[in-house]
């Protein structure tokens, strides 16, 4: 090995290449593989058709999350198609000896919440899942990204996928964040600057003061949203914050193994002088609480700003106008004061304990606006338990909010948690695509603080008024 300065990304990537194919992708070894009920059945079917097995079942972890109901989880799932997918996951994992945290299991929850909280996600690992928000796990200094079902079948059968190595981008955010500005706002700000395709072809490393000071929950939120600017994934160098988060978690290394791994994890950082294909720097002080006004996550702005003119936006005017028409908004509109019908807090983006603490900090001692329907959905049973232990449950109840059971829920509305056509939802999830939260639904992406302020007032509101 040469001693030239190397990036964190190169260190992890290069150590996982089994074979380099000339004029082709790398055969890339996967340490941890997460599966769920929606993108895995066809992969298992493929194994059957080919008559091949699972090479390392102990490296794959299954949880049910995408189509699961968020109430009455003790009852049989009503939708026959969802019930069948859940049954297939149970059968397939049993057949091949794969760990399965199905509905009702105390460790069940959203795949990108349960992986980290149980110590499955560790620094320096390669992690994939048939879900684009797998980038979440990059918060630990892992290379983590979403894959298609054909690739799920590859990982099951060979623990490898075929991947061309992406280019490298570093995004620095320096300085201190202002009042009411959360990791979600940092991510939405970056995406609004880069656009929804600005990092396509790249793997991102986040660096600078803001990420160094950020909690693991916050780092997960930021890395989660990497895909929304087109990046395959994003990562943050592991540090003491990371090690403190992992230590003691159920499946994390223990004893001598911990010491050995910790020594390795401490080498996982970008050497000074290492170069990136692209490097961008932002100032934390330029970021305010964000909200989206359009139909992709790049169409976001500071909450006090006005919707931009089509002429000032990169890309096609007709696409931009189509988007605003869908949302029922006009150029130059202010978002403040727009009526809100639904509020959703949860998802792999903002379904962790810190998000519910933030939400509770605003709704505490106040009341939910009468016309607002609010869905408060923890990312996992462990988060749900924390919500109760910390007294957040009581705050929510007193303010008129009901706590639901864990799952992906209204983020992609595969279950019954659908926003009706034409209605506006302030959502802490990750995508505001047309119909994402139900056919005809209109999504305003924002932080848990902005969601809380909207839930209380019934209109889009600057959360700083309550802080």
């Amino acid at each position: 090995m040469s001693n030239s300065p190397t990036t964190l990304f190169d260190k992890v990537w290069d150590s996982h290449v089994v074979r380099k194919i000339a004029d082709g992708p790398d055969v890339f070894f996967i340490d941890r593989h997460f599966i769920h009920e929606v993108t895995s059945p066809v992969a298992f079917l493929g194994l059957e058709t080919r008559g091949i097995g699972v090479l390392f079942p102990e490296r794959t972890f299954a949880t049910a999350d995408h189509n699961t109901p968020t109430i009455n989880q003790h009852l049989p799932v009503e939708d026959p198609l969802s019930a069948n997918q859940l049954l297939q996951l149970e059968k397939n994992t049993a057949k091949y000896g794969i760990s399965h945290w199905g509905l009702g299991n105390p460790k069940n929850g959203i795949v990108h919440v349960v992986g980290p909280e149980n110590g499955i996600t560790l620094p320096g690992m390669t992690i994939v899942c048939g879900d684009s928000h797998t980038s979440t796990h990059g918060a630990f200094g892992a290379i983590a990204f979403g894959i298609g079902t054909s690739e799920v079948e590859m990982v099951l059968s060979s623990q490898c996928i075929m991947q061309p190595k992406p280019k490298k981008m570093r995004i620095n955010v320096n300085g201190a964040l202002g009042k009411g500005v959360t990791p979600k706002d940092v991510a939405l700000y970056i995406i609004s600057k880069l656009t929804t395709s600005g990092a396509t072809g790249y793997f991102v490393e986040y660096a600078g003061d803001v990420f160094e000071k950020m909690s693991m929950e916050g780092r997960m939120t930021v890395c989660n949203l990497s895909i929304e600017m087109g990046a395959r994934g994003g990562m943050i160098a592991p540090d003491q914050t990371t090690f403190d988060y992992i230590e003691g978690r159920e499946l994390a290394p223990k004893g001598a193994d911990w010491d050995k791994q910790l020594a390795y994890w401490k080498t996982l950082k970008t050497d000074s002088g290492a170069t990136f294909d692209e490097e961008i720097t932002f100032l934390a002080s330029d970021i305010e609480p964000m909200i989206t006004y359009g139909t992709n996550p790049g169409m976001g702005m500071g909450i006090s700003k006005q919707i931009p003119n089509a002429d000032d936006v990169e890309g096609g005017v007709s696409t931009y106008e189509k988007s605003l028409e869908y949302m029922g908004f006009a150029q130059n509109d202010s978002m403040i004061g727009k009526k809100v019908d639904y509020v959703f807090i949860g998802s792999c983006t903002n379904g962790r304990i810190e998000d519910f603490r933030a939400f509770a900090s605003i709704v505490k001692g106040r009341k939910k606006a009468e016309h607002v329907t609010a869905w408060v959905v923890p990312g996992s049973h462990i988060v749900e338990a924390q919500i109760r232990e910390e007294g957040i449950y009581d705050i929510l109840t007193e303010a008129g909010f009901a706590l639901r059971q864990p799952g992906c829920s209204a983020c992609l509305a595969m279950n019954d948690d659908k926003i009706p056509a034409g209605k506006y939802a302030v959502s802490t999830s990750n995508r505001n695509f047309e119909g994402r939260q139900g056919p005809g639904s209109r999504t305003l992406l924002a932080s848990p603080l902005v969601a809380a302020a909207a839930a209380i007032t019934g209109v889009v509101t600057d959360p700083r008024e309550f802080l």
Partner: protein
Amino acid sequence: MAYDSFNVLKSSAVPLPIENVDTDQIIPARFLKATERTGFGDNLFRDWRYDKNDAPKADFVLNNPTYSGKILVGGKNFGSGSSREHAAWAIYDYGFRCVVSSFFADIFRGNAINVGVLPVQVSPEFLHQIFTAIEADPKAELEVSLPEQTITIVATGASEKFAINGYKKNNLLNGFDDIDYLQAMKLEISTFAENR
């Protein structure tokens, strides 16, 4: 074993000059509940194609008999969003074998190749030429040659090269797939895993 081979495709094309066509539009999440990979074509672009009463929307291009063919031509950043391979299955199942755009989202591009749909990335200028050609003649044919890595507007002869790595090109030309390749190197992979 996974899919048909791809060599030269000459066909008229269906234009969809919209940017950032995301996978939730290509196949909405509520249609992801199947446990097999067939039948998704019926729900391709479901919410653009049908109204809430499941009646076809006359103004959507797939409902316009003027346009047909095995090639779908989309605006910049086609396939952004979710990793759902169902998006590529739906495009394949509907009958498309090639998608042309000036820019593709990464995961979609990989998924498309893995199911036998060739993503052809062209320059913004050439994309504009294609849309113009289809506007002038809805039956205008495109010729996509994988061996030559070219896409040609047959009527004008205008042509452009496109990129694909040699490994994937060979796979598509012969109908080989990655899983067969990986199965053949399982011993090497196991040794690698042990030494980690």
